[in-house]
C-alpha cells in the first residue's frame, strides 16, 4: 500500500494504491488525520481508484477521518470506489454517511 498527498488549491488529494487491511490501515488513518487537520485545507479527497480491497479496519480509518473533518469544519470526500469498497461501506451502513464521487473532477468541484 502506498499513500501520497497532493494539493489542488485549497483541497488535498490523497492517492492510495494497493489494498487497505489491518496491516496498513493505521498508516491510512495517520495520513488522513494529518491532512484533515492541516491549516488552510478546506477539503480532503481520498482517491481510492487504485484500491481493490478495504477491510473493516480501513473503514474504521475512514470513519475517523470523517469525525476529524467535522471537528475541524472541513470536508472529507471519497472518490474512485471499487465494487468491493462500495460493498463494505454499504454492509457497514456507512455508504450514505460519506460524500462519494465518481472521479477527481467531481470530488474537488466547488
Amino acid at each position, binding site marked *: 500500500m502506498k499513500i501520497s498527498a497532493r494539493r489542488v488549491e485549497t483541497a488535498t488529494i490523497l492517492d492510495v494504491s494497493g*489494498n487497505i*487491511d*489491518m*496491516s496498513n490501515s493505521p498508516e491510512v488513518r495517520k495520513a488522513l488525520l494529518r491532512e484533515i487537520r492541516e491549516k488552510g485545507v478546506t477539503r480532503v479527497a481520498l482517491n481510492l481508484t487504485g484500491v481493490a*480491497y478495504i*477491510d*473493516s*479496519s480501513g*473503514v*474504521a*480509518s475512514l*470513519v*475517523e477521518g*470523517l469525525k476529524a473533518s467535522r471537528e475541524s469544519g472541513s470536508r472529507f470526500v471519497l472518490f474512485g470506489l471499487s*465494487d*468491493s469498497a462500495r*460493498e*463494505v461501506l*454499504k*454492509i*457497514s*451502513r*456507512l455508504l450514505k*454517511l460519506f460524500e462519494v464521487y465518481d472521479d477527481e473532477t467531481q470530488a474537488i468541484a466547488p
Partner: protein
Amino acid sequence: MNPIAAKQPRDMNKSSKVTRAFLLKLELRSHPTLLCVIRGALQPLVEMLGFSAEHNREIIRAVDEAVANIMRHSYQGRLDQPIEVYCNRLQRRTNGEIEQGVEVLLFDCGPAVDTTKLEARPLDEVRPGGLGLHIIRGSMDTVQYKRAGRLNRLRLVKYARTSKGECGSAEEKPS
C-alpha cells in the same frame, strides 16, 4: 511440533446430503501482512467454484475479517502464532438441484473464545471498529464458533445460489 497439525476436523461428515472435497490447506503465522496471502490464494479458488463476482468478494471479505479477528482478539496482536485455514468444496442437493458451496475452517490456538463477547454491535451508532462480525455474518450462510480441544474453530459456509436463488439474491435488501 505444531499442535494444530494433528487436529484435522473429522466431525463434519454427519450431514448426509452434503458431499465435501478437500481443496486447500494454508498454514501461516498471525502476522497481519499475511492477510493478503490468504486473500490471494482464496480468490482464484472461489472463482473456480462458480460463485458470482459479488459472492466471491463476500467470501474473501468474511475470511479476511475472521482471520484479522483471530490476530487481534484470539492472539491479542502477537505476530508469531499459528493459524490454519482449510478450504473444502461442498455440494448439496436441494429440490433435485445441486448447489455448489465452499466451507472455510479457521483454527487457532488462542484461549477459548468468550462467546458472550461475540456480539456484532448495532450499526446505528457511527464509530470506528466493531464491524468485523457484522461483515462476516452478513457475508456467509453459516458462521459457527466452536472450541475443539485446545483449539478455536470457526466454520464459514456459503453456497452459490442456484439460478432461482440467484434472482432472489439480486434484489436489494431493505436497509
